[in-house]
């Protein structure tokens, strides 16, 4: 086994990816066996042994530890892999690196005919700087979140747990949480190391399913069920677009492998008409929009907050939603210039949309959800305008501090006995100092204060935006809106912090708040460190000198080189800083010094406040435009196919001769033949004389024919 591992270092990553899958399989089988043995635990000795060995009535704690150990091991492997890959890439030539860090096998081969070899769908991995960095980030963040959720999900341990929202008694589900979390980690890591679009698509949908199960973890709550469905279906719409892109690529390139596609693209351009190439690009981007909750398909992310907080932290902040940005970065050459422009504008709309809605949210997790939507908008904007490195760097830094913020909010919620409403919190600084301090770090980082990781990446994005806007000032909005939104971001993040941690507790929940246990505090502190230092580079005060940026520079696809136009004069940096400062001062002005009462602003804003509170009415619009018509179409086509009558009248309905539905046509055919039979019956009247008359007519006819044929003819 070890020899296989050391054959090529790339396999390190394969093992790291498969570890969570192994854990998932183990937990699944364990849970299954336990469930099968439950009814027979009294009668059969062996079943009794299995049942209690696998945890008996109380869910098993060791399952969770196994899962955490699994993900921790893959995190260690990831870091080792990163280190080895970095020095390999320095020392060896690209071909040599290619050989050691990329492999693939065929998954399904079809069509091996005389006219050519079989074109195969294959699975494989290929490690480059981007993958190595992201892999390490995802693994480490996941490990932190696993450790955090050991503590957070503690109340799922009891035998009968009373769900505080759905008020129903149910057995604890501690093991199942880690089951789906490990499956998610596997599919996320698999997505990163994939070397072809098909494998990305497979893990794309697997990740969607894991988010479906995790959002719907508390499936007694009706809202959780609805949110899970919504998330999966909206993702599925994105995946449908992705599949259309895949189909076009498959038809014209004949392969899904990134390298082969990029070399063919670089050598002789897209082998299909321009509009089809654009559609392929848009298709793949639609997949990313669905997954990263960009403008048209963003409505599912805030509802995904129904899931437990570690889920929101892991899936809906750090990793899954980042997958969309990663994919845009990975298949960058696939996007033609005008598709890139579309990406930029989608990003711009999303970031503005997310920020404005986050301003008025009162639920702590919803604020963070919308801030995630907004930050993802920033990344898409950066990628759209050619700032490949800026976008992906922001992806990396954002993952750390957003995970920190979410975990902080989790600890706050647990501290305040499952209270999520900011208006009921206050003054938690004194009761939960460490959470308060670590969240402050996160808030500072996201607001873009200097020397924090957020500053480096956001600054780079804004300078790219400025460069792009100056270069082609028709797109000036692409710089103005993000600048303004940077200010908004600072405002709503500090608003959250001040509402939660400063002032006096406004509700008994926040009065009796208590600091979370150690297993939750340690991850917060550990995550606070990278939120500050991950993007540092020498010299410290120069935002463009981030070490992370240099690393990512290596992985930039060839064609993206000429695109990014950084503004050398740091003007964008200063402007961003000014905007952020403005945002912070207004927040302090309103929430700390209480010069202006927020309620009065709401009164003045009136309709605008309602508009923002209702999340720009997207849910209602989509419901009216898509959901309700589809269901209506479903019901009327069902009605067209068979008029569903209750069983009692069904017998009669089938006898009536009206074509009410496609199925009715059949009944009519049947009854028609019955009617014809009825008519023919009448001719047998029983009177002999009538039969004789018929006889005479018949003979007359025969003789007439006979005469006509033989004698007249």
């Amino acid at each position, binding site marked *: 086994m070890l020899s296989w591992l050391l054959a090529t270092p790339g396999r390190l990553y394969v093992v790291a990816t498969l570890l969570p899958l192994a854990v998932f399989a183990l937990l699944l089988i364990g*849970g*299954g066996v336990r*469930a099968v043995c*439950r*009814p*027979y635990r009294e009668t059969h000795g062996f079943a009794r042994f299995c049942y209690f060995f696998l945890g008996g009535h109380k869910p098993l704690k060791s399952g969770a530890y196994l899962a955490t150990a699994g993900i921790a091991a893959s995190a260690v492997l990831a870091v080792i892999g990163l280190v080895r890959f970095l020095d390999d890439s320095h020392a060896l030539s690209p071909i040599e690196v290619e050989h050691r860090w990329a492999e693939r096998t*065929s*998954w*399904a*081969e*079809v*069509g*091996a*005919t*005389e*006219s*050519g*070899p*079989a*074109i195969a769908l294959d699975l494989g991995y290929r490690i480059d700087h981007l993958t190595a960095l992201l892999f390490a980030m995802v693994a480490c963040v996941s490990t932190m979140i696993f450790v955090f959720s050991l503590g957070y999900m503690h109340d799922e341990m009891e035998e009968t747990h009373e769900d505080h929202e*759905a008020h*129903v008694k149910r057995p604890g589900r501690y093991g199942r949480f880690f089951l789906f979390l490990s499956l998610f980690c596997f599919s996320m890591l698999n997505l990163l190391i994939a070397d072809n679009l098909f494998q990305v*698509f*497979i893990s794309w949908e697997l990740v969607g*399913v894991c988010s479906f199960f995790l959002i*719907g973890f508390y*499936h*007694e*709550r009706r809202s*959780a*069920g*609805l949110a*899970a*469905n919504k998330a*999966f*279906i909206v993702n*599925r719409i994105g*995946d*449908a677009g992705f*599949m*259309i892109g*895949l*189909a076009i690529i498959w*038809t014209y390139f004949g392969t899904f492998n990134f390298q082969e596609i990029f070399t063919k693209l670089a050598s002789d351009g897209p082998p299909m008409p321009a509009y089809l190439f654009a559609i392929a690009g848009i298709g793949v981007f639609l997949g990313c929009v669905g997954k990263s909750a960009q403008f048209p398909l963003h409505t599912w992310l805030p509802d995904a907050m129904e899931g437990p907080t570690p889920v929101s932290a892991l899936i809906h902040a750090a990793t899954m939603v980042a997958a969309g940005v990663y994919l845009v970065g990975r298949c960058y050459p696939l996007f033609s210039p005008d598709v890139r422009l579309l990406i930029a504008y989608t990003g711009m709309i999303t970031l503005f949309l997310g920020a404005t809605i986050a301003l008025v949210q009162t639920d702590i997790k919803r604020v963070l959800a919308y801030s995630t939507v907004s930050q993802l908008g920033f990344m898409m904007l950066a990628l759209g305008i050619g700032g490949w490195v800026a976008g992906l760097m922001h992806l990396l830094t954002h993952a750390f501090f957003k995970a920190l913020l979410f975990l902080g909010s989790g600890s706050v919620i647990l501290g305040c006995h499952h209270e999520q409403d900011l208006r009921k919190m206050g003054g938690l600084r004194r009761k939960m100092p460490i959470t308060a301090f670590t969240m402050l770090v996160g808030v500072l980082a996201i607001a873009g204060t200097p020397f924090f990781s957020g500053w480096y990446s956001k600054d780079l994005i804004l300078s790219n935006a400025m460069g792009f806007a100056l270069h082609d000032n028709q797109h000036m909005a692409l710089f103005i809106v993000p600048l303004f939104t940077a200010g908004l971001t600072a405002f709503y993040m500090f608003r959250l912090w001040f509402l939660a941690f400063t002032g006096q507790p406004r509700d008994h929940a926040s009065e009796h708040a208590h600091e979370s246990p150690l297993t939750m505090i340690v991850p917060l502190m550990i995550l606070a460190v990278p939120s500050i230092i991950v993007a540092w580079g020498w010299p410290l005060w120069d935002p463009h000198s981030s070490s992370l940026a240099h690393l990512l520079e290596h992985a930039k696809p060839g064609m993206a080189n000429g695109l990014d136009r950084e503004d050398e004069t740091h003007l964008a940096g200063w402007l961003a800083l000014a905007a952020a400062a403005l945002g912070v001062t207004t927040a302090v002005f309103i929430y700390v010094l209480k010069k202006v009462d927020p309620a009065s602003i709401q009164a003045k804003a009136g309709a605008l406040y309602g508009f923002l509170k209702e999340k720009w009415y997207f849910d209602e619009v989509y419901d009216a435009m898509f959901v309700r018509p*589809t*269901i209506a*179409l*479903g*019901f*009327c*086509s*069902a009605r*067209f*196919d068979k008029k*569903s009558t209750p069983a009692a009248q069904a*017998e009669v309905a089938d006898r009536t001769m009206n074509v009410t539905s*496609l*199925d009715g*046509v*059949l009944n009519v055919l049947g009854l028609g033949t019955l009617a014809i039979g009825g008519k023919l019956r009448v001719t047998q009247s029983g009177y002999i004389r009538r039969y004789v008359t018929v006889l005479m007519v018949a003979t007359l006819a025969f003789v007439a024919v006979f005469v006509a044929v033989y004698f007249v003819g």
Partner: protein
Amino acid sequence: MENADDMIEHDLILMSLVIFAPAAFGLLVLFFPPKWTEAVRWCALIGAAATLILSLCLLIDYHSLLNRQSDRGLRSMHHPSTQLDARIDESMRRDTNAVRWPQIGDDLVASVPWISRFDINFAIAVDGISMPMIVLTTLILFFAVIASWGIEKNVRAYFALLLVLETGVLGTFFATDLFLMYVFYEIVLIPMYFLIGIWGGGRRKYAAIKFVLYTLVGSVFILVAIIGLYFTNVRDFVDTATVDDRAAERMKENPRLSKESAESREYHTFSIPILQRAGQAAMLRLNGQGDRLADRDSKTEGKVNILGRGVKTEDAINRMNQPFFSANFQYVLFLLLFVGFAVKVPIPPLHSWLPDAHVEAPTPISMVLAGVLLKLGGYGIIRLAYPICPWAAEELSLFVGCLGAFAIVYGAFVAMGQTDFKRLLAYSSVSHMGYVILGFAVWSTGAKSQYWAWGMNGAMFQMIAHGITSAGMFFVVGVIYDRAHHREINGFGGLMTTMPLYGGLSAILFFASMGLPGLCGFVGEVFVVLGTWNYNPGLAIPAILATVVTAGYLLWTWQRVYLGVSTNPVNSTYPDVTAREAIVLGSFCLLAIALGVLPQTLVLAWMEPSVTAQVEALAKLKP
């Protein structure tokens, strides 16, 4: 020369055993005294298990046949001599001069004269297209027998009919003689009528009669086509030696027959491979490429060698003025066969029998109906309709493709509007079988013929995958029906909390039928969609968007049945799945995962060569 013991054809014995073992056990079950219900069930189970094991041996046999003759080079297992036509041609050649070359016992082709007057023989064979269907049938019937443990009403008759049904289905898949296939195709109907009519639900009579009449109309179409085929003189596509032997035999039987001259000798047959060659010749002629016809042994490039040995191309061409080789006869023949099998698939305008049959049939029967009987339609199309009239199939491929795409979208939307769980699954079967039809229709030729190979293999795989997921899903409904005695989706709720194991297993089946990667539903759909775009994007886009609607209605059902808290308290009193139910559900889930993760090693390795060979044979006909 072959040694003596090859004289006995092992493959004939094994194949006939697989076909008739279920019927034998079925009859055996009838002799049990009525009170021994438990013994009857176990006997039926042993019968089904024996057939399953036999079919698996056959699969291993077939796999080794492919291995033995595969050239290890580029295309392992694709050696032309392993293809069905080559093997049948070889065994027919050995028939004629049996003295020098006795039949080889392991070529998995066997033919015993049955009604020699009309040249109908008990011709059975196995290749990559029929083998997966056979294994699927025995598998699903085995689980259906396990699922039938709850049947109480006259148990003996039930199991006898079920096992005879299995014989009918298996026979259809084995037969390479049209007449034999038609006989087995009809045998399937009678047990099905009684199974639905006696053990069914509320309006079983209506459903049973509707099912049988509808399918009979379909099979009448097929019968007309078969007779049309029989009256074609196909002497050019058989070796001249065989034709002369046949004429000599006829002379021996009734000497007073006027002596036919060598020229006017006729050869009529029901054998599928020969009719396939005639169909291909018709396509060449109608495409104006008669000159590409060549003798079977000629090696010239670009020629299609489908004529019998010793037949000259010129007189083969001028013998082609029979009706069979005219355009409208090909159209009529294809439409007859296609509509006949489309009723079975079913394709929307002709699908009205499926929801009623499913709703009224008992659980094990709707498992069999959905898992196996729908595949008869698909198998008929790929085995008969396409190879025998390729020209009309190619002309109408857009029409067939549109039907397939319409089926997918229509099935999905109608399923969304259902409130009865089984009716919903019936329509979802219609939608999934739409992929199969779409996969067949994506006719692309020349260098791009590989995309059609993807479509066809996707369709075949989708049939297997749908067989497993739909049978599993119907069993899921059966389990909850045994407890709740109603199938109203809105009447359930919160089953995930009351029956966690049941919830978990049905989650796997729900997502498999939704086409989640890593499970079997995904593989078929992706192959078909990837193959379709090259043929016509207008068909691929609805097929792709329909996956969203499929996800919609399945998840909506999932949410109403499993999530949330149930409105009426009785839902929370249901016991979790028993061991028996867990075995069936568990094995379906295991199959779904295994086929989703390893399609190549488990299925494609031995199924794909035959499907691709058929695609290649038809694709090279078009210029």
